């Protein structure tokens, strides 16, 4: 297996982009990544997208996007794993480069979520849960994570304040990210007094509905310095795993087993442990998710992530900075693009070009991208070489 490097990244400012179409957003991000890398061709491409069909009535993104980027007849594949679609697209591109099948591969993600109204978006997102045995009964995604939060509070004494600190911290980071959808500070009071969505989760515990795309260029590490002037960032670890789709079928609602397994595989490939990860981008689709994830990744012991967050340990200047981009909460969550958006942040930090939100001296970062209520997860470890 060949070592794989990221040599280019592209994104735009995410948000409610009424005047922009799915193809327009994606092509912009892809062009930005190609220009950033400086490559003169691509051999193959992958697109992560959760539901072009339900959000904009468009499937067959492989043809559409290769066409509008102007790269036909390059082979293109659309990858779907709900909100983990982007990370899974990176995994697919990684495998293609590592195997020797292709040298230069574009990996990307996109979601255009605001053409439908709130009810339409809720319906489309809910298809990531068990349609017949969760959604039929009246479950929503905030509702599923709210049940995780209730269980966590009951078992570990997590307070409403500690939960809110996740959103406050991520907005503190997002305010410094020029690509963030909601780059504004959020006080503890604002989070705790925001509209109730699914008790105990409030509006400011939830990531937003977002339009956006992101892309990255992969190549074999040994060719990276010839192909691009950018410092190569090595993809040193990768792991993916699944879990039961219905939350009720998991023995422990607070243990994200797919994340545990995906991280184990990524750590093993990279030959490192959680203590050797300098910073991480994790899937904070809801505040409670960030707490369960950073425990599943081995950064904090079970039941302690809330206290650690309140104590500032996951802040930019803490011992384990989490979601320096602002996370899904502040940066936005265009579901299919999120996994590649995380890679954009890791590469930016590892290049040392994150400006005001730069974490000093980081050499190795982890991205964790999760589908549904935790039914699929993919982790990547990136490092400076």
């Amino acid at each position, binding site marked *: 297996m060949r070592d794989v490097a990221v040599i280019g990244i592209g994104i735009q400012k995410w948000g409610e982009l009424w005047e922009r179409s799915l193809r327009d957003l994606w092509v912009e991000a892809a062009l930005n990544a190609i220009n950033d890398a400086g490559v003169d061709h691509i051999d193959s491409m992958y697109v992560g997208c959760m539901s072009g069909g339900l959000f904009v009535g468009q499937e067959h993104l492989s043809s559409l996007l290769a066409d509008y980027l102007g790269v036909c007849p390059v082979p293109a594949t659309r990858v779907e794993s709900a909100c983990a679609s982007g990370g899974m697209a990176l995994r697919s591109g990684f495998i293609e480069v590592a195997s020797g099948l292709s040298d230069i591969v574009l990996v990307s993600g996109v979601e255009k979520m605001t053409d439908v109204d709130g009810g339409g978006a809720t319906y489309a997102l809910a298809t990531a849960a068990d349609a017949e045995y969760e959604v*039929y009964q009246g479950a929503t995604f905030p509702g599923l994570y709210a049940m995780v939060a209730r269980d966590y509070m009951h078992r570990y004494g997590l307070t409403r304040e500690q939960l809110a600190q996740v959103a406050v911290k991520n907005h503190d980071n997002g305010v410094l990210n020029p690509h963030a959808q909601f780059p504004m500070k959020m006080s503890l009071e604002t989070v705790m007094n925001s509209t109730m969505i699914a008790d105990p989760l409030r509006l400011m515990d939830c990531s937003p509905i977002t339009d956006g795309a992101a892309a990255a260029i992969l190549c074999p590490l040994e060719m990276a310095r010839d192909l691009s002037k950018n410092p190569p960032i090595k993809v040193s670890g990768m792991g993916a795993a699944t879990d039961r789709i219905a939350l009720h079928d998991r023995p422990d609602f607070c243990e994200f087993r797919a994340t545990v397994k995906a991280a184990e595989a990524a750590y093993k490939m990279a030959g490192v442990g959680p203590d050797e990860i300098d910073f991480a981008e994790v899937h904070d689709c809801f505040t409670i998710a960030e707490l369960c994830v950073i425990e599943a990744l081995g950064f904090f012991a079970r039941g302690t992530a809330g206290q650690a967050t309140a104590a500032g340990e996951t802040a930019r200047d803490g011992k384990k900075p989490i979601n320096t981009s602002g996370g899904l909460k502040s940066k936005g969550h265009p579901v299919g693009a999120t996994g590649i958006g995380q890679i954009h942040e890791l590469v930016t930090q590892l290049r040392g070009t994150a400006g005001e939100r730069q974490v000093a001296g980081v050499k190795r970062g982890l991205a964790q991208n999760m589908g549904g209520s935790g039914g699929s997860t993919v982790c990547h470890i990136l490092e400076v070489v």
Partner: protein
Amino acid sequence: MAFIPSYWRETPQRYRYEGNKCIKCECKHDSKCDCETGQVFFPPRRTCCPWCDCTLEPCTIATTGKLLTYTIIVVPPTQFGDEAPYALGICEMDDGARLTAQIVDVPLDKLEIGMPVRIEFRKIQQDGHAGILMYGYKVVPNS
């Protein structure tokens, strides 16, 4: 959006709470999967895992159990618009079957993790003003 064939297909589970049960687990996949004799599947499954010679028999799941966790849905999906706020929970029935269901006939401030519940047959949703009525299980306090 209601799909009539799938609604019809799921009636054994929604009306009669039919699952299946592994009465003799002969899994040759030591330690890699979590299947075991006595496990109840709801809805029924074709297999515990691909390496099992398990004997699965149809069963009706227990209709009493306890509440493991819950939420109060304040912002509902469109088809539940008239019902919010409503309580939704995960229940473990006495035979180990797990299900997600609405919790009804209880004040929202009286919900408690661990409370005993039992299944009742209720109307779940309606496909618009002219569409079919859809039924199934909800849970109520069992005291």
